[in-house]
């Protein structure tokens, strides 16, 4: 380039002002930095939203990075379940489980996410354990609905295994419903579900679980409240944290054909999110944050030193100091490199999240004859007072009383 050639020529000219040389050298470095950061990144197309979460979710998924595909699978599946679009939910959950069910090793994007200059959010998203557990929980519900309680049980077992990563032993594999439903499926398959029931009872924190009734043919899965929201804490948002807003609805009551069935909160997804403990990735992000901070400090010190040296290029007797020039140049370069390294380090925690999860999960098993059954669903606050605005009518249609009818009830609308 002409600019470089001319600049080299000037540097080679012995009569040039040396203070100007230092200044121009640093300007040149700055220009290199600016240009080097100009690599274009393909922009994600903007999707025009229709207001329908399934349509919009699919549109977003179609233009999303491959690394974000599971994220959209999760969100669409939850919306589809609430809309009664079970085929859509099944398809998306199967796609997600295909990804999250395997072992991710030797992945280039995961390796980059661990590197100093790679962002954690660049890795393929599979979600934190509480998110993966919910994918299995929902898929299990659909397997049961399709007459495959053994595959449903497999999902509950996988979910509980995912939750076994918690730091604190008391929070390992502590979902009540996953064990309870594992045992119920086993009992319905003519097996002995008592061990699973006992584990569930142990995790229920004093709440007495209803015993299994093999002839209960209507399985009600209920959920209420909004789940946890991720955010990054710390100087560089490198610490993954969860914002939990306790939902107003603490429990529910389902009244069908005049008979009321309580739907207590057996599991709290927010509690599960905050009790996982530290991740290996948190340690990596912590190291990145330390590097970012240290290199920034080194950069500041070196640039300050460079400026001081540049101001002392002329000695008191008016002669030129080559040593001061070299020092200014070297410190300036070190400072700039350190600042760039600091700026390029990305310790920010990955806060992509399944943003339409519920907070509380409940379950009940009923025995109903064939036919249509009507009633209501009331959500109750912490004091057990019905939240009138949330009460809704419910219709349960039992087509074949010899097989299980699965009913999914959510306080969330999308």
């Amino acid at each position, binding site marked *: 380039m002409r600019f470089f050639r001319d600049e080299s020529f000037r540097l080679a000219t012995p009569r040039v002002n040396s203070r100007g040389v230092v200044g121009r050298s640093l300007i040149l470095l700055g220009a290199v930095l600016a240009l*080097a950061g100009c690599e274009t990144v393909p922009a994600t197309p903007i999707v025009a939203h229709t207001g329908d979460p399934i349509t919009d979710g699919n549109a977003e998924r179609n233009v999303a990075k491959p690394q974000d595909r599971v994220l959209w699978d999760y969100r669409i599946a939850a919306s589809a379940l609430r809309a009664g679009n079970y085929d859509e939910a099944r398809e998306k959950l199967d796609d997600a489980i295909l990804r999250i069910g*395997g072992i991710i090793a030797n992945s280039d994007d995961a*390796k980059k996410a661990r*590197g100093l200059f790679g962002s954690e959010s660049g890795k393929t998203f599979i979600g934190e354990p509480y998110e993966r557990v919910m994918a299995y929980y929902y898929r299990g519900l659909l397997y049961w609905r399709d007459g*495959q309680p053994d595959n449903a049980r497999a999902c509950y077992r996988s979910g509980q*295994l995912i939750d076994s990563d918690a730091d604190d032993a008391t929070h390992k594999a502590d979902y009540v419903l996953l064990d309870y439903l594992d045992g119920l499926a086993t009992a319905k398959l003519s097996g002995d579900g008592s061990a699973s029931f006992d584990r569930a009872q142990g995790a229920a924190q004093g709440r007495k679980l209803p015993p299994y009734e093999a002839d209960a043919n209507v399985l009600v899965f209920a959920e209420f409240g909004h789940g946890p929201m991720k955010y990054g804490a710390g100087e560089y948002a490198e610490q993954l944290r969860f914002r939990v807003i306790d939902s107003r609805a603490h429990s529910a009551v389902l009244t069908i054909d005049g008979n009321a069935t309580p739907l207590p909160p057996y599991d709290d997804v927010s509690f599960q999110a905050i009790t996982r403990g530290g991740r290996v990735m948190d340690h990596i992000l912590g190291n990145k944050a330390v590097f970012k901070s240290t290199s920034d400090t080194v950069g500041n010190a070196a640039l300050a030193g460079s400026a001081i040296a540049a101001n002392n290029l002329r000695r008191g007797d008016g002669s030129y100091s080559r040593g001061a020039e*070299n020092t200014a140049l070297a410190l300036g370069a070190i400072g700039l490199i350190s600042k760039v390294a600091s*700026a390029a380090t990305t310790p920010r925690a990955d806060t992509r999240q399944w943003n339409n999860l519920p907070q509380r999960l409940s379950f009940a098993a009923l025995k109903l004859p064939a036919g249509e059954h009507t009633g209501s669903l009331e959500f109750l606050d912490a004091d057990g007072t019905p939240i009138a605005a949330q009460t809704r009518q419910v219709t349960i249609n039992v087509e074949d009383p010899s097989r299980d009818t699965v009913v999914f009830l959510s306080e969330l609308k999308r």
Partner: protein
Amino acid sequence: MKTSLRLGLLAGFGAATGFFAGCASQGVQNPSGVPVTEMKADERGFVAGTGVESQDLVAVTDKMARSILAIPEIAQATTAPRIALDPVVNDTRFPINKDIFNDRLRIELNKHALGKVRFLARDRMKTLEHERALKQTGQVTASADPNVTEFRGADYFLTGKLSGMTTKAAAGISDYVLYSFQLIDARTSEIVWEDSSEIKKQGLEDAAYR
């Protein structure tokens, strides 16, 4: 400082800063995609987990088919025994397509048995009964008296179970799956044949996911 040294220093700084600054930009993984790779069903792919995979299905059903054909009840039967398939029971932590085990087992047996066994299409009974009703009401033609029950009863039931055991520790995850199959005499309830296959897998996820 000599001019050549200055130039070298500048060039080096330029390259280093360019390198560092470039690292801050987001990259695009596999911008050209990964071409579709055709693989054998009994081959381990590059997308793998510790669960039930196609290579396991092929290995297990191959072994079971060979084993069944060797038993006297099949090998020495004077008339081909009728076998009905009962879906396998999944007692592992992996949700699976259960029909695929019986399907491949049936296909392998039919391929190698050379008429020594016959399978009953019990999963098609609704369609078959509908067709028979059409024949009985004269809506379609019949090559035999449709009022005579010709649906065959099963001599044997072939079924199976997948059982699993999982270990998870800091060193990784390990999954053991036992695939057991049985041939049950429909008249006596005797188990006339049983065989199993077992597969254990283990792995550790990238630290970015731990």
